[in-house]
């Protein structure tokens, strides 16, 4: 699935709930769904906070067998993950990247040649017993 969204805070719970609904229908385990919801939220809120001056962004999510690949793309001024300082226990900011790196099996940040950034998140899926997903997802 792929969606173009307004760069608006309220778009984040919307896309989060949509993806969670899809993964629930496929029978993905709750713990994995929780992790995906959170890493997706972090990627989208980064765009809303930092991707000046664009007013839209795109989220795509693909499931291949047991792998979920999420791409969050914006047309802002790009992003340098190395410039983000690690959060110390008492600091307010810097936990979004820490959370994405902890929950995803793979995280990649790419700046596009024109304008904007792509965050690509991958997560290995596990299915509940008797789940529908594994029967009809074939690459």
């Amino acid at each position: 699935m792929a969606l173009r969204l307004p760069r608006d805070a309220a778009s984040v719970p919307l896309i989060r709930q949509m993806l969670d609904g899809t993964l629930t229908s496929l029978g993905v385990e709750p713990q994995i769904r929780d992790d995906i919801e959170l890493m997706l939220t972090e990627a989208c809120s980064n765009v809303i906070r930092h991707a000046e001056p664009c007013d839209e962004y795109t989220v795509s999510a693909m499931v291949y067998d047991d792998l979920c690949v999420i791409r969050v793309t914006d047309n802002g001024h790009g992003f340098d993950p190395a410039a983000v300082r690690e959060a110390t226990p008492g600091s307010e900011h810097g936990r979004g990247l820490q959370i994405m790196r902890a929950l995803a099996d793979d995280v990649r940040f790419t700046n596009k040649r024109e304008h904007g950034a792509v965050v690509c998140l991958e997560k290995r899926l596990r299915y509940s017993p008797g789940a529908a997903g594994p029967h009809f997802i074939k690459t």
Partner: protein
Amino acid sequence: MLDKTPLQIEVNASDATTVQLALIGDLDFDTAGELASVALSEGVERVDVDLSGVGFIDSSGLAALVRLYQRAAAEDAVLRVVAATPYLRSLLRMTALDRLFHLPPA
């Protein structure tokens, strides 16, 4: 425009030195700002936060809790998270906030 995710904040200030907060709903990028409206009056010594009704929290929600912690500290009060779901516990541990918020063992 799109609807906000709901967050309910229940405040119980039964005695002058303790504020009990129960948060219910999603504490996320969309709603985290609402914690700024919680009033901490002079003379407060403890802020106890119950997160067992929070279904979802993200780094913006965690940042809002850290801000509340700092506001409490400015009044010489201690903020504690007194209850949380297993998922929130693992997230607080992952971000090393369990110690800052004095999270009791499960």
